[in-house]
């Protein structure tokens, strides 16, 4: 579904990704772990199409097409979803309004009829229950005055409504208490399925206790140094990242 081949990317003069490769197939859940500054969030940003990053080498295929050639909205309509590390506030713009516009943009692309207000409300009520969110959230401004945890929950709500093919979760666990983490994990797990892939970027093992990955990758200095199954995450938790770097150097 997603094939990242020798990806190099920089911000200005600063090289961040230095030959990153990764294969993700439908139905898989991948966790990308790594220390601060290793390039985790850059990877998520480049895949989603955020401005300010320059790809200098390599390519990314998504469902067989050149992902990097698409505008951010085209990527979203093609089924890519990024759950933001820091969701932005958009004052005055109704949360439900944005979500309905987003859902219908994706539905149009899939050749499905747009949902009207009633069908949309019925759909979103169910999803909000799953995310344990109060309906009053719908009528508030997008992320306006939300707590950190509420913002993250709102991201997963959007994901649950839009039902993407490929979900990128950028540090979704940061700033969440244990209860909120459980709710968010439940939302993500509800989306697991043979047609869908999930790529999680995270610092900590703790998210992986709740969302069990099929693969764990260690990202350091812009490259994936080591890949394994979920036991790798536990080892990282125990031993830190240094040994992986040393191992890589030796190799």
């Amino acid at each position, binding site marked *: 579904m997603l094939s990242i081949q020798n990806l190099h990317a920089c911000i200005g003069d600063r090289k961040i990704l230095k030959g990153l490769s990764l294969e993700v197939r439908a139905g898989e859940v991948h966790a990308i772990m790594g220390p601060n500054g290793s390039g985790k969030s850059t990877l998520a940003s480049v895949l989603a*199409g*955020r401005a300010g990053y320059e790809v200098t080498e390599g390519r990314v295929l998504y469902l067989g097409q050149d992902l990097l050639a698409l505008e951010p909205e085209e990527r979203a309509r093609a089924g890519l979803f990024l759950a933001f590390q820091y969701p932005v506030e958009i004052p005055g713009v109704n949360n439900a309004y944005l979500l309905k516009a987003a859902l219908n*943009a994706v539905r149009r692309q899939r050749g499905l009829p747009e949902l009207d207000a009633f069908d949309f409300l019925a759909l979103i009520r169910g999803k909000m229950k799953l995310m344990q969110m109060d309906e009053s959230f719908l009528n508030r401004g997008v992320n306006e005055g939300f707590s950190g945890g509420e913002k993250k929950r709102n991201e997963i709500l959007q994901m649950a409504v839009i039902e993407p093919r490929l979900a990128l979760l950028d540090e979704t666990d940061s700033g969440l208490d244990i209860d909120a983490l459980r709710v968010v994990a439940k939302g993500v797990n509800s989306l697991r399925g043979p047609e869908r892939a999930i790529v999680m970027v995270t610092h900590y093992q703790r998210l992986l206790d709740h969302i069990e990955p099929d693969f764990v990758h260690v990202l350091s200095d812009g490259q994936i140094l080591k890949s394994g199954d979920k036991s790798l995450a536990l080892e990282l938790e125990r031993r830190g990242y240094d040994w992986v770097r040393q191992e890589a150097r030796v190799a």
Partner: protein
Amino acid sequence: MSSSQHDLDALVAQKYRHGFVTDIESDTVPPGLDEDVIRLISRKKGEPQFMLDWRLKAYRHWLTMRAPDWAQLRISPIDYQAISYYSAPKKKDGPKSLNEVDPKLLATYEKLGVPLHERARLAGVAVDAVFDSVSVATTFKDKLASVGVIFCPFSDAVRDHPSLVERYLGSVVPATDNFFAALNSAVFSDGSFVYVPKGVRCPMELSTYFRINAANTGQFERTLIVADEGAYVSYLEGCTAPMRDENQLHAAVVELVAERDAQIKYSTVQNWYPGDENGVGGIYNFVTKRGECRGADSRISWTQVETGSAITWKYPSCVLLGENSVGEFYSVALANHYQQADTGTKMIHIGRNTRSTIVSKGISAGRGQNTYRGLVRILPSAEGARNHTQCDSLLMGDRCGAHTFPYMEIKHPSAVVEHEATTSKIADDQLFYCRSRGISEEDAVNMIVNGFCKAVFKELPMEFAVEAQNLLSVSLEGAVG
């Protein structure tokens, strides 16, 4: 992301949608202004002596005045002798009904989407349509008359209700008030007159669509709205103008009088030709709008959405005379391309426990310059006065400007005056967030701008709010910074 200068330039290419000229023979006075022209205007309109005297007095005072230069505006000098001060569609007699109205005129309104026929009735809107300087059609007059509401062209009011006109005209904006108001008082052609008698709640929204048509014709509208004790009226003003190369001067005066316990809501959507993408042409909009809360517990609300005109010079104000009276100003002003807007309000607190609210949202794009200029004056008599002001500016691109000049004069120690101001750019983060949800850049901009303006739009009557949102979308098509 493609939010580059290139895209900004693409926005600049956007054309004014209402650019067309209706070909109707006009009865136009040759350019120039002197006392004879004023006498001619007054005679053409069959005015009583007091009107002519009033005009002449205003004119003589105007001659002693100079055009104001304190605004944050660059205005090329205006040759007042090059302007024609009277233009009317050629007609032997005024139309008695819509059937008598020139079909071309009606077609023009059709293009503008003015609901003049059944649409008007369905929408519950009475339209006093002003074409150039003379009102040609007024609907719903009878229904309004049955509750005693007078809503008619100003010239009719001068003829049919001279005592009301004489009593209230110039009582809020004196003929000598300022340069443009004095000019208007001398040469005003027509406008609307509204009188809502004691205790009457006007049964419908009153609406006027202005349209400037004949080339080189300055428009000098005069509007007077009086809400007598306990009365309520909501008035809507909407404007579009055809495309033109010369700058056109528009110097209107609007006076509102709210007696005890009365309420006036005045809403404007202004969409005059702003000039082309190079700053050529466009309307000069120099308006004096002022309301007086004369009686206790009265309330006046100004709501404006200003998207048009090359230059806007406009400060809808409230004089809060009556105890516990309330003044409100809600404004969205957009300056795109080379547009310049210097707009805001004055809240003059005179009575005890008077309150005012100011919410101003300025949007600057292209090379537009947007200025908020506001005065909150609390006089020694205004014990317990309160004001809350909120001024927010939104910038799109890096070649536009936002300026804020809040003046406050507080002469009573019990006054509570608050001022909040913010300036923001449409953040790349916000745009990217929307786009990463599958929403196009253009829709995202509209969404964010409409969100920014929400506090003002919710003050508009429903149909108008929709119109205002559409107008803003059209005016900002492709505007990404």
